[in-house]
């Protein structure tokens, strides 16, 4: 049975792709936080990304591959696990598992739905053309990403979509960010409790930082 069929093999592929995605959201978060440093900072960040030229497309293809593997196996494992588990007990008590562990596939799918919206919103820029960077006046010869972002998040609907999606991401990470240590065979039993606790802290930091962007802009604490 090869890697793509084995029960452990597919978990390992999920862990490795999940970890790469964590790497991506780390870098992405650092870039996004530049909005708090004002228009020049985030516009310069956007310009740097655009200047990468064809490299951007290489990067996008890699991301597509990572998501494809992670999502395909995520859904496949979920369906298999559901098929393996019959109708529920009349009384069932779980002792140690968490809400986030039980909802991985759902929080994942919320993140996926959000991702598609996010790309249409900020990359393709077709959901709110009136505040799209490409329809705004250039500043110093480059796109005014700052105005697009601040105007977007002053819209309650858009800000709420982002906040809800980031709560889903937070929940996904609550389990995922430490789960890979076990999946890749690095935990030793006594270590896993600490790793899990640390993972939850990291997930909360990521989640709150991501939520802060739409929230502070919506509240006009940052303009």
């Amino acid at each position: 049975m090869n890697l793509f069929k084995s029960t452990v093999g597919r978990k390992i592929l999920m862990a490795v792709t999940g970890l790469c995605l964590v790497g991506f959201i780390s870098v992405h978060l650092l870039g996004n936080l530049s909005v708090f440093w004002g228009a020049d900072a985030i516009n310069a960040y956007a310009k740097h990304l655009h200047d990468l030229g064809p490299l951007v497309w290489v990067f996008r293809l890699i991301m597509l591959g990572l998501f494809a593997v992670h999502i395909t196996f995520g859904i496949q494992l979920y369906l298999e696990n559901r098929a393996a588990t019959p109708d529920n007990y009349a009384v069932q008590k779980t002792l140690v598992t968490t809400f986030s562990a039980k909802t991985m596939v759902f929080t994942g799918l919320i993140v996926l739905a959000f991702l598609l919206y996010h790309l249409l919103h900020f990359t393709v820029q077709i959901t709110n053309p009136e505040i799209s960077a490409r329809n705004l006046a250039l500043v110093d010869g480059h796109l005014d990403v700052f105005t697009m972002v601040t105007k977007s998040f002053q819209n309650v609907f858009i800000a709420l979509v982002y906040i809800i999606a980031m709560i889903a991401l937070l929940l996904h990470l609550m389990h995922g960010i430490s789960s890979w240590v076990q999946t890749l065979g690095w935990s030793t039993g006594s270590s896993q409790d600490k790793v899990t606790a640390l993972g939850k802290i990291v997930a909360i930091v990521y989640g709150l930082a991501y939520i802060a962007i739409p929230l502070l802009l919506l509240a006009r604490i940052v303009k």
Partner: protein
Amino acid sequence: MDLTLHVWRQKGPQDKGKLETYPAKNVSPDMSFLEMLDEINDGLIRQGKDPIAFDHDCREGICGMCSQVINGRPHGKQEQTTVCQLHMRQYSDGDEIFIEPWRAKAFPVQKDLIVDRTSLDVIMQAGGYVSCHTGGVPDANVHPIPKPVADYAMDAAECIGCGACIAACPNSSAMLFTSAKVAQLAALPQGKPEARKRVKAMTEALLDEGFGNCTNHYECEAACPKGISVKFIAKLNREYLKSLMPTSTEA
């Protein structure tokens, strides 16, 4: 004490089954859980009714036959204790107790609380053994095995194959059971030659038998009457990763 039992009754594999309620009167706190059921069954037999079918054998916590989910927990509420070693002093007068069979697609119910656990045997047959000739009893210390390694293997060998880990798992995965076997044998010199083949064969059998995939909920460890640690699942994952590397004896 007087209790109310809600017991899963199912005539056979095809029957739909349902919970039936039985009063349990004058239960002594010194009885084991199975002795309490024996008394209920005596009463049912006297009334000409079909007694509750349940699995048991040793009644001393080593055979792994007893298999009941009691108030939502495999083997009941006492930690690291099989149903046969659970005593009625854990309960108090007036308690309502729900008793159900292990539930997993790979464990079809045969009758009442009895499930068919052949699927665990199939996983064992796929690689839960060493196929070298062991000969007569060797001299002591012929195989130098460090104490921590021997202890580790013994901890894994504590698994009695009861299946509570599967009954507790939200995915009905048999990973804790399988990992205990894989880890025990992979730790010892006799098991090493077949370690690569074993981990692949046993995890493949696990899926073929209709168990789910492990997603690190760790409910298995919490339910296990023998305290088998999920560190053995990490060990199984390591053994699987190792099996992906080429070796010098492979072409």
